[in-house]
């Protein structure tokens, strides 16, 4: 019976990897003891990096503004501990390259003193614009991993008249359970945050999609939302990538986001459950985003679980708190399907970090790559309806235009194809490579076009100058001839002569 159900009822897309969420998800939330030092990167979000407003040596309180946002899409950074700014310098970025990026280092005074906050008793009395302003000022970004500034989406949603807020509690990445934990431990914060966001964008309902492998979270959220009929808890099948915006929107509303369009254009907006809780704290308590729940998991970890930690804490400090049974064979920020490889643990915890995985040698083993047998598993798994095997074949032979013809631009890099490939072909690697090449090509094209435009403008200017000079000369000549012909009389110089 289960077999038949599995056969007919599952979504046609996606994969079902072992989720490895338990036991880590069931361990009660632990609070990290104050780290001695935190490094707050200026770029923890999509958009422009924040600009520092503190000086080295300055004393700061927890929640104090360290760097303000720059540009339309950006987010400010706040101190996650109270203490002294000791450096504004480069630290290793959470990126496989291991390159550095700018961060503000604070030496903790272990006092954990907050700035004076500005709590709001009744957010629903505030104008929607004021909620967006406060959310932006609190540095709230999408905590599901996209790290897009939340307030920018509020404004967009309001402008496009979004009616439905989708609260993403899918958390389909294996190993990671930080959203699960926030729904179990702070469901009222999530529900309140969702209601505040609804008010901010003018939506009349919110659908909370939670994968059905999280029954405790579903129960807790259902209880917390009982008093608010507009907040509807909707269990969804556990299937990767259910937590992807497009797939969750389709599953919950039946709507499909058109290619190259935003979700708001079909009347929905997606926010992660952790983002909702952060909005709740930003508005109700006036607290900026300086802490988050992060899952520490993987076979190399002695006591896996979820940790409530200040942002900017080093990954090594988090791993030391949970204990390492052995040196990890692989270190990942995020989940195993779309996470980022870390070269080492001297990397700060950033806003979008939902998990840190320390894999042992077995988990980190990379299977041998074989030839494509055209089995079509990738095609069946692709949640976007693409043909990964064809795209990869074109990319491998250097035919990027061929890959574009197979709609490479629609690929969401979810990794289903590479996961499910029986020959273990690193398909996502091919696609990332091609996307990188294409964007480099695009940049080069823009540069060439700009150069061409400038050269043409220069040519046009030179021509115009020459023409104007010739015209002026001709006019003067004519005037002199006219003056000679007439009786000489005093005449003012023509103005053109000055050009």
């Amino acid at each position, binding site marked *: 019976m289960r*077999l038949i159900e599995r056969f007919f009822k599952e979504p046609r897309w996606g*994969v079902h990897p*072992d989720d490895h969420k338990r036991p880590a998800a069931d361990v009660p939330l632990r609070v990290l003891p104050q780290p001695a030092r935190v490094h707050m990167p200026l770029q923890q979000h999509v958009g422009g990096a924040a600009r520092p407003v503190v000086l080295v040596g300055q004393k700061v309180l927890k929640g104090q503004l360290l760097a303000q946002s720059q540009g339309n899409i950006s987010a400010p950074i706040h101190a996650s501990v109270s203490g002294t700014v000791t450096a504004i310098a480069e630290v290793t970025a959470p990126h496989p390259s291991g390159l550095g990026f700018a961060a503000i280092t604070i030496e903790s005074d272990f006092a954990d003193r907050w700035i004076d906050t500005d709590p709001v008793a009744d957010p629903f009395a505030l104008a929607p614009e004021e909620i967006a302003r406060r959310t932006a000022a609190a540095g709230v970004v999408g905590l599901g991993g996209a790290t897009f500034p939340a307030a920018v989406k509020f404004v967009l949603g309001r402008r496009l008249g979004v009616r439905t807020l989708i609260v993403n509690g899918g958390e389909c990445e294996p190993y990671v359970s930080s959203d699960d934990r926030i729904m179990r431990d702070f469901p009222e914060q999530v529900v309140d945050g969702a209601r505040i966001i609804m008010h901010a964008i003018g939506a009349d309902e919110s659908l909370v999609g939670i994968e059905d492998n999280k029954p405790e979270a579903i129960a807790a959220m259902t209880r917390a939302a009982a008093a608010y009929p507009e907040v509807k808890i909707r269990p969804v099948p556990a299937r990767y990538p259910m937590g992807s915006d*497009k797939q969750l929107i389709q599953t919950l509303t039946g709507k*499909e*986001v*058109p*290619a*190259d*369009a935003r979700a708001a254009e*079909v009347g929905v907006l997606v926010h992660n459950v952790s983002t909702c809780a952060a909005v709740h704290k930003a508005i109700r308590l006036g607290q900026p985003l300086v802490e988050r729940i992060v899952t520490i998991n993987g076979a190399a970890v002695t006591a896996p679980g979820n940790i409530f930690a200040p942002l900017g804490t080093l*990954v*090594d400090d988090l*791993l*030391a708190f949970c204990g*390492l049974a052995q*040196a*990890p064979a*692989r*270190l*990942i920020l995020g989940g*195993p*399907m*779309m*996470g*980022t490889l*870390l*070269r*080492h*643990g001297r990397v700060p915890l950033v806003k979008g970090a939902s998990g840190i*995985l320390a894999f042992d040698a077995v988990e980190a083993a990379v*299977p*041998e790559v*074989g*030839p494509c*047998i*055209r*089995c*079509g*598993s990738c*095609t*069946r798994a692709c949640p*976007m*309806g*693409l*043909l990964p*095997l*064809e795209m990869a074949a074109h990319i491998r032979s250097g035919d990027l235009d061929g890959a574009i013809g*197979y*709609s490479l631009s*629609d690929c969401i*890099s979810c990794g289903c194809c*590479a*996961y499910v*490939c*029986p*020959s*273990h072909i*690193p398909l*996502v690697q091919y696609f990332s490579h091609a996307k990188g090449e294409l964007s480099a090509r695009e940049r080069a094209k823009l540069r060439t076009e700009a150069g061409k435009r400038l050269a043409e403008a220069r040519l046009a200017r030179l021509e115009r100058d020459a023409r104007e000079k010739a015209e002026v000369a001709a006019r003067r000549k004519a005037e002199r001839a006219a003056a000679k012909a007439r009786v000489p009389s005093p005449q003012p110089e023509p103005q053109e002569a000055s050009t």
Partner: protein
Amino acid sequence: MTRPVEMPVAAPYAATPNSVSRVMIIVMVALTPATLFGFWLYGWPAIYLWMITVGAAAGGEAVCLQLQGRAVAPVLLDGSAVLTGWLLALSLPPWAPWWIGVFGGLFATVLGKQVFGGLGQNLFNPAMVARVALLISFPVHMTAWVAPLPIVAAAAPGPIAGLLITLKGMQPAFDTVASASLLGFAKTELSRGVDLAQSLLHAPIQGWYGSRAGSLGETATWLIAGGGVAMIFLRTITWHIPLAMLLGIAIPAAILNAIDPARYMEASTHLLSGGAMLGAFFIATDYVTSPNTPRGQLVFGAGCGVLTYVIRTWAGYPEGVAFAVLLMNSLTPIIDSYIRPRIYGRNRQGVALEPGK
């Protein structure tokens, strides 16, 4: 405390437990009951022929890999060459001489597969390429069927006599068991002007469970179909190609049989005869040579079925599965080029959907 990772690899950092060899093993396991049943029906010569064919296919692959300077063992262990030889063996007359197996096995992996570049690169199904090459080159040996003679029967050749049959060809002592397959018999009779109503009365014995003259894969029809359905449930193959192919045979057969039963055989006879089941579940579903979208697979399967019926009914050969599959193999790239899945957020033509719809 954490040491640097030497080799950055792209996400995902998790992989399916599935692998190419697992796929091949599932297919082989699904073939096993039918094969064992065939062994039981046709005795030692069939066992020897199977071993020779599989060995030749694997040997051909090994030689090619050696010549390419590639490691032989890991590629052979993926099981694809053995499976190719196995499928070929199931489509041969069970008492065919040893050199049929050797020639076929080598032809399948060397010319059918490795010259194209190995696994995943061949346009045509290697087993069917070899079968057709054999059928055209050695029509007499390839149509010399024997009536089933279970291995335990007193008249059945023992291990030594069986070996002699395989090595020296069919022995006069066993000549009495020579027979024709049903499709071949009906075609011959029709060409002599005897209609089906007459000829089928004298047709070779048709045990409902499949004990009939034919290849190993022909006699064990129900076991073949059972193995195929098991593969569908294990998600090794999807239902699209088998169903489309069987319907492609059954629908025209049923229509024409209803019109003129004296000239056209029943649909059930078509489905249970020849290589229909083996073709639908094991041959046409070959990943490498079939389309990789569900709709493309429906087109491909239906094409295989209809062509099989057309060849069986109106062409010179009594059986058409191999030809039909090869013809459709050649269309696979075209099918794949025209029939693509609909992309999320786009219509079938690849144009972005209108917001608000």
